[in-house]
């Protein structure tokens, strides 16, 4: 009789552990999803800001048609990449960041533009949006790390495998493209 109680007790304990682990996994996965939604909001903001920026800058920058076009193109590509998975999207966004930084680097050559109030406000918005993107990416990656640890470490990996929790994907940055020093020639 006692043996039966012990078995029942162990089974109950195992079920309780299973439920707790499962709930923990769900919580972490939701956090990852929420963090991803945050990135999306900021990326969308950046896409909305760019036409505005190009419009403002166009009048001043007569000789930078190529740079402006590359920004517009990169923005369109980034917008098309939405919904095509974390990998594709992070690649397109990294290209956009590169194009933007090249544009803002040549701004240095146009003192009139730098005095434009409208442009200054846009620049503050853009800088902040870039920051928000990198901070939301940071939070997303931290969340993914926590979630992945949970899905891969013993014993929670058993629960994760049984109930079908898949490891999350990091939002990588193409460091080379982003950190690339813009070439400014004075010739």
């Amino acid at each position, binding site marked *: 009789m006692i043996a039966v109680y012990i078995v029942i007790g162990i089974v109950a304990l195992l079920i309780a552990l299973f439920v707790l682990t499962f709930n923990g996994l769900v919580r972490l996965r939701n956090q990852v999803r929420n963090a991803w939604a945050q990135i999306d909001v900021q990326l969308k903001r950046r896409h909305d800001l760019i036409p505005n920026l190009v419009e403002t800058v166009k009048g001043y920058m007569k000789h930078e048609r190529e740079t402006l076009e590359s920004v517009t193109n990169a923005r369109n590509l980034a917008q098309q990449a939405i919904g095509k998975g974390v990998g594709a999207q992070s690649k397109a966004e990294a290209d956009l960041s590169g194009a933007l930084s090249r544009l803002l680097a040549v701004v240095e050559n146009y003192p009139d533009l730098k005095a434009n109030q409208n442009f200054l406000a846009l620049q503050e918005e853009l800088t*902040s949006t870039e920051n928000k993107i990198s901070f939301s990416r940071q939070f997303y990656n931290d969340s993914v790390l926590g979630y992945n640890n949970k899905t891969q470490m013993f014993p929670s990996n058993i629960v994760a495998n049984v109930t079908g929790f898949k490891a999350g994907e990091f939002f990588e940055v193409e460091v080379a493209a982003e950190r690339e020093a813009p070439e400014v020639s004075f010739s």
Partner: protein
Amino acid sequence: MWEQIRANRIRSMVLVAAMAALLLLIGYFLGVAFLGSAIGGLIMALAIWIVMTLVAFFQGDSIFLALSKARKIERDDHPRLYNVVEEMKIASGLEKMPDIYIIDDPALNAFATGRDPKRASVAITSGLLQKLNRDELQGVIGHEMAHIRNRDVLLMSLCGVLLGTIVILSWYFTRMLFFSAMFGGRRSSSSGGGYAQVIILLVGIVLMILAPILAYLIYFAVSRKREYLADASSAQYTRYPEGLASALEKLGASTAELKSANQALAPMYIINPFRKKGRAATDLSSTHPPISERVRILRSMAGGASFADYNAAFSKIHKGGGSVIPQSALAGAAAVGLRAAGPEAAPLEPEPGKVERTREVSDLMWRMNNYRTITCDCGTKLKVPSKFKKANVRCPHCGRINPV
């Protein structure tokens, strides 16, 4: 990553319980000495404590903000500050954007308040807003966000209330004892309680003297730990400890005093507002660790911005080793890289210089005080108070007459 919140909660419980026990002990002796019954004293102490706690819990942040003469600002009032707060909100993973307040004071300080992350506010003095560049502002706001995120605000206000109750009760106790001795209200002689009562009274007197000191010590110890933790979190959020370090240096070098600071809520500020008059804040604070030390720790965080890096830097500075971050938060934490100066991935910093920042903030203060701004043709900006009744105003610079 967020385990320290749980570890904190347990430690906070112990702390609050210790202070509550101290309070009840005082109540007990008060009851025995003046009310003739221990229960009466206990009930009195409890009642005062509960009422004050309820007030602090539900109205604490509004009272605190009102006492500090803080004024709420919106996004358009100061876009950069708003953006920085939003950035830190994202980095810390808070759900709700805190309200932002400005205190019109040249002193350099900032604080966070609000009982939980859903109802939180950050406040910053106009002086600090002028002084800091974007990276430094980010560090300071990150520190305040960490206070909100770690629920330090709630804990420190509950402790502050307990401390306040203890101080008030023991103050009245000693006064009452003094007066009853002076004017011969010696009830004990008629009751003939004898030695037992005398001993209880003596113990009570000693307790009344020691209790506030003890309570302050507990309070300060916790507060200092929280400051370290908030610094570590700020470094982790911004990935840039140097920002907070150089902000702290500026804060420490300033000698201006915050006029509207509140003693009980000193731990809420980023640096102790009650340092000695006219002196720099460096190393004089008690609710806060010495600023120079906080700066040194942040500066020696080599190779990473994680809690583990902060902890390593802390033990390097304190020769004996030691640890400020709960073990549970360190376990399983991954390496966190630092970022280079200037925001990662950001193309160019639209960094307004000192003059622009000062102008920005003073314009903001004029606006908030309901002054109208009229730009004269000569380029001078005239600030007209709302009480100004005349139809025209003469520009003091060029003499043109401008319609109001």
